[in-house]
């Protein structure tokens, strides 16, 4: 049984198709990378899975239960969405913003329990936010802000984390840190769908890749099956410098983390 399963999902805006008959499936503990050129429909697909927009056509189910049969609040507890831009309206402190990630688990007047606090504490440490916890969000750098947004989503402890380009604002070291965090999230039995532009990161960290092109799926599978010269040319109009035939490991990371 798939954790999340979507079939023939279609979305159009003002008569213009954005997604056309996309299938998607996600297993427990899996990290699925959504890749594809700008405008391919990756963010739309993610917003659809997050429940932010509705599909015009198609079926979407969570553990074989139609998504429509799941309450808004249960869905918020089980699926966390991290949008591309972390927009924060008020200069609240990092700690308070991260803590809001527990709200889907709380009743309106219920205060966070010791367990909630422990989770918040753990995530703040994991995401390296300890030094800034009292600082106002607007005083942080772009990379620090991105980590706050990620921490807010992780604190929800969702079954599925949907992350839209979570590393695009980060320096290489923090890119690796965030990808490692997402991997760890999967190792504990939870799943991640992550939109990435960096194909090396995608190939290295994701169990499977789904390549979107012009609103449809061009290829899905492991990195070797998806990142073929033909697919890359078709989707991105690029060519690899080395084809898989010329080297044994075409998907080598261009950098590694120095402690």
């Amino acid at each position, binding site marked *: 049984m798939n954790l999340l399963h979507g079939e023939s999902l279609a979305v159009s805006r003002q008569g213009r198709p954005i997604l056309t008959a996309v299938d998607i499936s996600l297993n427990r503990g899996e990290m699925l990378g959504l890749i594809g050129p700008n405008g391919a429909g990756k963010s739309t697909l993610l917003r659809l899975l*997050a429940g932010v927009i509705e599909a015009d056509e198609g079926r979407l189910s969570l553990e074989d239960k139609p998504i429509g049969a799941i309450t808004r609040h249960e869905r*918020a507890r089980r699926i966390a969405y991290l949008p591309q831009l972390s927009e924060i*309206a008020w*200069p609240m402190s990092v700690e308070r*913003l991260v803590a809001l990630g527990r*709200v889907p688990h709380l009743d309106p007047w219920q205060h966070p329990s010791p367990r909630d606090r422990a989770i918040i504490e753990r995530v703040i440490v994991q995401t390296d936010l300890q030094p800034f916890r009292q600082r106002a969000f607007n005083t942080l750098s772009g990379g620090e802000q991105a980590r706050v947004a990620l921490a807010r989503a992780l604190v929800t402890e969702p079954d599925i984390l949907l992350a839209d380009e979570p590393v695009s604002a980060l320096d290489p070291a923090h890119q690796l840190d965030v990808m490692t965090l997402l991997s760890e999230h999967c190792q504990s039995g939870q799943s991640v769908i992550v939109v990435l532009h960096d194909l090396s990161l995608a190939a290295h960290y994701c169990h499977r890749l789904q390549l979107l092109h012009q609103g449809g799926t061009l290829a899905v599978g492991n990195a070797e099956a998806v990142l073929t010269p033909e697919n890359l040319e078709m989707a991105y109009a690029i060519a690899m410098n080395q084809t898989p035939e010329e080297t044994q490991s075409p998907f080598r990371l261009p950098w590694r983390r120095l402690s």
Partner: protein
Amino acid sequence: MISAITQSRLILALGLSIAFTALLSLLTGSQAIPLLQALHQSFNGGPGIYGLILTELRLPRTLVALLAGASLGLGGALMQSLLRNPLASPGLIGSASGAALGAVITLYFGLAGMFTLALPIGGIAGALLATLTVYLLAGRDAGILTLILAGVAVNAFALALVSLLLNLAPSPYAVQEIALWMLGSLANVSRNELWILLPGTLAGWLMVWRQGRTLDLLTFGEETAASMGVDLHRLRWRLFLAVALIVGSAVSVTGAIGFIGLVVPHLLRPLVGHQPSRLLIPSAMGGGLLLLTADIVVRLLPAQGEIKVGVVTSLIGAPFFLWLILQRKRDMS
């Protein structure tokens, strides 16, 4: 948690200030009254001018100032949080101008003179109608900018209609009555006004009970809030209706009173760590405190006839708001 202590301290400080100011309000007026004697008279039911002044005039006036001010402060905090804009005021979605138009219509056609409830009913109906128009104009999936623009349009239209009625008013007396009402005043408030104010105010307050966390989630933007379980349409509807009720009721009783809804949340926001849910109760208390204080100032000003309290709040509020903006500019640079 340090912040929670700060918030309860803030609420305590506001509560004490309100108690002190309310006492001052009971003692302030053209007729000096000995409080103990007045209390004695009013509780023992015996006839006495002091007791009458206290229970029929000063107490209702004090309570109306607190309730109406609280509604304006709360309305401001709600709108600023909902629209994620520190410049939003409770009148932005049409509630205040709609209420003014509704009330002025009853004055223009002489309905207000025929039965007491006409003016407040007209005001609340006007507020609801204007707010509904803004909501429908903007559409179900409107962005914040569309909502604000629709609000600006409806406000402008309602105020144009008010001007038209002023223009067409049958007699100079009617013009004066409308114009004076528009200035905003608590001078003629009695128990009746208190009873008129209460139902809409309480209904509106109840509607926003427990909405604080939802407003907190809106801090992340509407899409993220939706993914965290917020039903945006319901929230908007609920807040629009609540603000129309509380601001409509307040404006119907007091006339147009500017700047409280804008300034009070602004002033208190840094004190609660900018968190929307923590801002609601202090804003309501601060709004009540500010309107009551302004009303006391009005009573103390030596003037021929009272200066209207709406004039005072705007006179103090506008420069103060400018000062806030300059502060912010300095903080930013």
